[in-house]
């Protein structure tokens, strides 16, 4: 029987309350969101917090809304809510494509965006999406709020810029009118972590790429992206040849490890192929293409 080790439990009543509880308990405390990453880690004793601060009552961390030229997704928004969000689908179909292949429908009912991002698994899909969309993470602590670019959010596997005593409160995605976006993932079985995944978000103006965002997961791409490939494509026509060259550059910038999901050269091949497919579909979907 797998059960977490003994732990204390307290329910936060507001973000301010949660922050004060985190301050009080220091690094012995962990926030409990959907629990679908943290509880399995606790069962395996890979996480041993002394107290859980449950933030499921914090409605201020829920909701998907448009604020100026950004879409704001609250940290406690579930994967199911992202999958079914008309706002996100209208502007960024990449979210629906990514969410369809994250875990399974029942897990998506509970798992949250903030929880997934703070777990920071190297194969986490929304991190690749956020990198492609150049999102901004909003982090709150006792002093106030600060923002961190998605592309600077990860310190390494399972490590982020969210420090003890801080809460990820929302992620903001800039709206790119007329953009096209797409997500591609290869997994060993339905709902598994990616062997490799790639997302793309592009705009096209005057027949050439005016902006390019690439997100790559599970193959040790620096900050889940491929900046050289992006820079190569900007100003170029969306031809199969240009996209193939960029996809190869993206794959070359990855440094996957061999593991039970496959050998490194296979993963590198996937990085090239999936980046190519994502870019191709995103370019076809972009207005003005």
């Amino acid at each position, binding site marked *: 029987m797998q059960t977490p080790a003994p732990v204390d439990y307290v329910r936060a009543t507001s973000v301010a309350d949660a922050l004060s509880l985190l301050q009080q308990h220091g690094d012995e405390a962990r926030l409990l969101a959907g629990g679908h990453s943290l*509880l399995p880690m606790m069962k395996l004793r890979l996480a041993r917090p002394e107290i859980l601060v449950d933030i499921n009552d914090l409605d201020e961390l829920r909701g998907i809304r448009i604020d100026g030229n950004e879409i704001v997704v609250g940290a406690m928004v579930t994967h199911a809510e992202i999958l079914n969000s008309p706002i996100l689908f209208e502007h960024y179909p990449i979210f629906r494509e990514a969410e369809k292949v994250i875990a399974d429908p029942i897990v998506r009912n509970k798992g949250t965006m903030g929880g997934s991002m703070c777990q920071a698994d190297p194969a986490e899909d929304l991190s690749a999406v956020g990198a492609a969309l150049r999102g901004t993470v909003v982090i709150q602590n006792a002093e106030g709020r600060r923002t961190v670019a998605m592309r600077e959010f990860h310190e390494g596997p399972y490590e982020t810029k969210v420090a003890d005593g801080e809460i990820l409160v929302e992620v903001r995605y800039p709206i790119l009118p007329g953009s096209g976006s797409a997500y591609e993932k290869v997994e060993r079985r339905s709902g598994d972590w990616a062997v490799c995944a790639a997302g793309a978000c592009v705009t096209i103006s005057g027949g050439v790429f005016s902006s390019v965002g690439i997100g790559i997961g599970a193959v040790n791409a620096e900050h889940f992206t491929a900046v050289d490939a992006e820079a190569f494509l900007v100003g170029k026509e969306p031809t199969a040849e240009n996209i193939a060259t960029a996809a190869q550059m993206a794959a070359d910038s990855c440094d996957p490890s061999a593991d039970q999901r496959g050998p490194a050269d296979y993963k590198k091949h996937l990085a090239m192929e999936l980046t190519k497919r994502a870019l191709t579909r995103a370019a076809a979907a972009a207005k003005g293409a």
Partner: protein
Amino acid sequence: MEISMKINGAEVTHDVEPRTLLVHFVRENAGLRGTHWGCDTSNCGACVLWVDGTPTKSCTMLAASAAGHDITTVEGLEKDGKLDPIQQGFIECHGLQCGFCTPGMLMTGRWILDNNPKPSEEEIREGISGQLCRCTGYKNIVDSIHWAADHPAENEVSA
């Protein structure tokens, strides 16, 4: 810690360790053994019940987090001595072999139909993709959910 929640409409209160998982609270404390305890790793879906109407893997939720919420288990599907059409469908179409996955399949199946009364085979298969049937009886499970879709409760399904 003392926690209370409504299970199938009845208030249940027990003193448990904060680390107690919801599946164990429902089975051991509330004594409702219909919800099965399977893989413990949120893979198999045998433990699916509803929290405020939403299917949830109860091996991956603390009972403490469920306090104050409305829980519905497989025992809550039957109404006034009549089986829910989803239960009847599993009888009609031989939707179970060993029966271990059945409670979770029933709870997810009912939820699929509540949101989509006429699902396609593909929509049903996607809907139950978080549940494992190790007898591999998926075809009959899909047929059972289809049967329930074709025989909604108004049609006087007999128990």
